[in-house]
């Protein structure tokens, strides 16, 4: 079990990362592209947080007011970095979605191929 788990999350991260990347490249719908980007992002978060887990460790919150022997803690550093990354991620997603609505108002569609076709005709 431990041997399997030693690399398991890496594989999951790679599959999710690739799925997100394929979604961004291949899907024509702009909202789908942004969802793909979000999947890509969570894969990166998962990679970092997987690193922070230690077998037998517990959440990094000190006991007995920091005095005396402490249990084995998971690594808090990746958790901090990913925590802020999630909040920044939703903010940037919102900006991206705003661009989608602006594109919709201008073109009347959010399909990439149709936008390109309209561009070709209206130049």
């Amino acid at each position: 079990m431990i041997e399997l788990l030693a690399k398991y999350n890496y594989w999951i991260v790679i599959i999710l990362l690739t799925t997100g990347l394929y979604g961004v490249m291949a899907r024509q719908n702009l909202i789908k592209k942004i969802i793909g980007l979000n999947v890509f992002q969570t894969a990166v978060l998962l990679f970092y947080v997987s690193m922070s887990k230690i077998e037998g460790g517990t959440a990094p919150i000190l006991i007995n007011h920091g005095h005396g022997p402490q249990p084995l803690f998971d690594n808090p550093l990746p958790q901090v970095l990913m925590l802020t990354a999630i909040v920044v991620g939703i903010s940037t997603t919102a900006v991206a979605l705003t661009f989608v609505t602006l594109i919709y108002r201008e073109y009347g569609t959010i399909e990439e191929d149709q936008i390109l076709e309209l561009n070709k005709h209206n130049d």
Partner: protein
Amino acid sequence: MTDLAIPLFLVVCGIAVLLVKDLMSSIMIFSVYSLMMAIEWCRLNAVDVAITEAAVGAGISTVLFLVILGRTKYVDEGKKHVNIPALLVAVAVAAVLLYGTMDLPHLRDANIAPNTHVVTPYYLEHSYEQAGQLNVVASILAYFRGYDTLFETTVVATAGFCLVLLLRVRNKKPGTLDSQKNEVTARKKTPASIGVKPIETFPDILDQDKDIIKRTVTKFLIPFIQLFGLYVIVHGELGPGGGFQGGVILGVSIIVYSLVFGFEEAKKRMSVKTKDLLVSSGVLIYGGIGVIALFFGGNYLQYGVLLPDPQFGSVVGIMGIEIGVGITVAAVMITLFYETVRIDADD
């Protein structure tokens, strides 16, 4: 077993999100994906991350996607055939990454570099003594890596400003340059002429919900949501929580109110102007506490000098900046919702 099953379920959701044709289902599956991700963070003992993911991923981002879907009113008409070049690139990237994992250390091992490098043991050891925080995540966030968090908060606030700039200033008056340009486009090839079919089945999010059950339950729940949000902000010192997590929960309470009682009612509780002011005042509180520390003879963001007892000074300073972060994050979450909902609403 759950350690294996939950990531596997994530993969299933991740693939399904991109495969389903209907955009609505896609967004719902993405919401489930985020919720599972929150459970996975719990399994990995990243409790603070889990709180944030549950509120942001499963809550706000779903609402945001649905609002935008309601504004654009389109189904995914993309061709279903497989994009071969894209697939090849994706497989190549996967192969390179897979080759890369062979050199990566084994996960769950306490002796690998990320866990034994000098900083992490230092943070764990000095968290209480220097920053007065029992939750090591909070002490790293606000004390050891305070600059980092200051600029993260600024990035969040900037995203809020971006939305305001992009959405509020456009098409204010008829006859401006913008509307003239629209007329010119209208005369040429239109979306309808190349086969774009609009659908208009979405209820308007601006309207009130007349359902008595939803209204009563929301009225009952919102004080508790807000109380929990405040608790999460101030409790960051002792347990899971902090400004980012609590701020998101506070933001959600206003969004829920607006969804059920309508945008007009929500504006009476939290006006657009107040919200704009709060976005920048949170960053001001954070930066201001740093400047106050300078006047007390310390370095920027060195909270220890604020009070005679350095440890207690740190506790007070960190509480202050957590509140600052909470205000900005809550206000930006409300901004994301307000500005996207208003797109077709005013003028």
